[in-house]
């Protein structure tokens, strides 16, 4: 059994990370999940949250992501995020910008869509709290 797998994090604008990882914690739409090597193949959507990657050397890095999906198979985990940033102080400003936007949309949205956007806002707020 392989001990590591390939981890990729890409956003539409660039590739943020590509490394060997032993485990990746993912904020999937239906709850957090952790992918390890030899995971069964799964494709799932993301909610805003932190992706935590444990590298082959045991170092842990985290990335803030909003939206997108993740593709997991035995050899690789690929996160395709609509917005992604390294989970540190620099990215906070960007994320707060998203939150601002989302809040504005939440007030404008109606019906089913409103629930979706409100959940998005709540997820983002949670994400910002986690990052502190």
């Amino acid at each position, binding site marked *: 059994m392989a001990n590591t797998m390939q981890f*990729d994090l890409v956003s539409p604008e660039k590739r943020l990370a590509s490394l060997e990882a032993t485990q990746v914690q993912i904020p999937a739409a239906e709850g957090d999940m952790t992918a390890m090597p030899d995971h069964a193949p799964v*494709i799932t959507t993301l909610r805003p949250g932190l992706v935590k990657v444990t590298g082959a050397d045991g170092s842990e890095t985290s990335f803030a992501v909003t939206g*997108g999906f993740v593709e997991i198979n035995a050899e690789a985990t690929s996160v*395709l995020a609509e917005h992604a940033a390294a989970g540190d102080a620099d990215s906070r400003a960007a994320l707060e910008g998203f939150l601002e936007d989302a809040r504005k949309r939440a007030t404008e949205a109606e019906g089913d869509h409103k629930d979706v956007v409100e959940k998005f806002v709540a997820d983002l707020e949670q994400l910002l709290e986690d990052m502190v």
Partner: protein
Amino acid sequence: MPSLKDLKNRIDSVKSTRKITKAMQMVAAAKLRRAQDAAENARPYAERMEAVMSGLAASVGDSDNAPRLIAGTGSDQVQMLVVMTSERGLCGGFNSSIVKAARLKIQELQAAGKTVKIITIGKKGREQLKRDYANLFVAHIDMSDVKKVGYDDAAGIAQSLMDRFADGEFDVCTIFFNRFVSVISQEPTVKQIIPAVFDAPDAEAEASAAAPYDYEPSEEGVLADLLPRSISTQIFTAFLENAASEEGARMTAMDNATRNAGEMIEKLTIEFNRSRQAAITNELIEIISGAEAL
């Protein structure tokens, strides 16, 4: 015969033109490199997205409850054409080739009795199409304030297109842009984005994907979530290709202009020297014949 002063002025003016075109060429070269990098960086995302979507579309797309963005409205009567051009000129045939492709399509559709609607992105395409098809315009998206097109801009455009689709404004949406082949070659490309078409995964790829994926929450759920993103991604890719093509076309055009200016300067300089020589000869003749008369 222009006077010596006129010639001198013309040479100076062509020289300053050459300086400008040379500078523009160098700026375009630098921007081209940046645009190519951006296109390169965006590729992994677009490719993965495409692969996942075609897999999903193949399994869900045929069923009756497929989303309308894939299944379409069952009609192709109202056609929306999104023509993407540049905001600035001086880039050779870049805008004309897109407009030409769009014109062809419009004529073809109108001949088939379809209703055509046009959305233009970029000032140059609007100027060219307005002459003949002003009555078909439904919107213009102004990108002149946007320095570097980001994913969010593309997502915004995609969202407004999907809203229009949801409101039943059109049945089929096609985008026009230039695909970047090389610095000297850009290919006008026509791509249908709504209803979404995906290349069927080829047999080889299907065989290599030995383990079929589980989808969470469900195939339909994932598809519904990803479709809008996929359309945004396609528009974003088109923007990036267009940006690279524009700078490539501008670079080639400016290179030609610089060379032409150089040739012109040579010709004018020869003419200038000849006239100067002629003037000197004339003066000499006058002096000699004056001396002889004495």
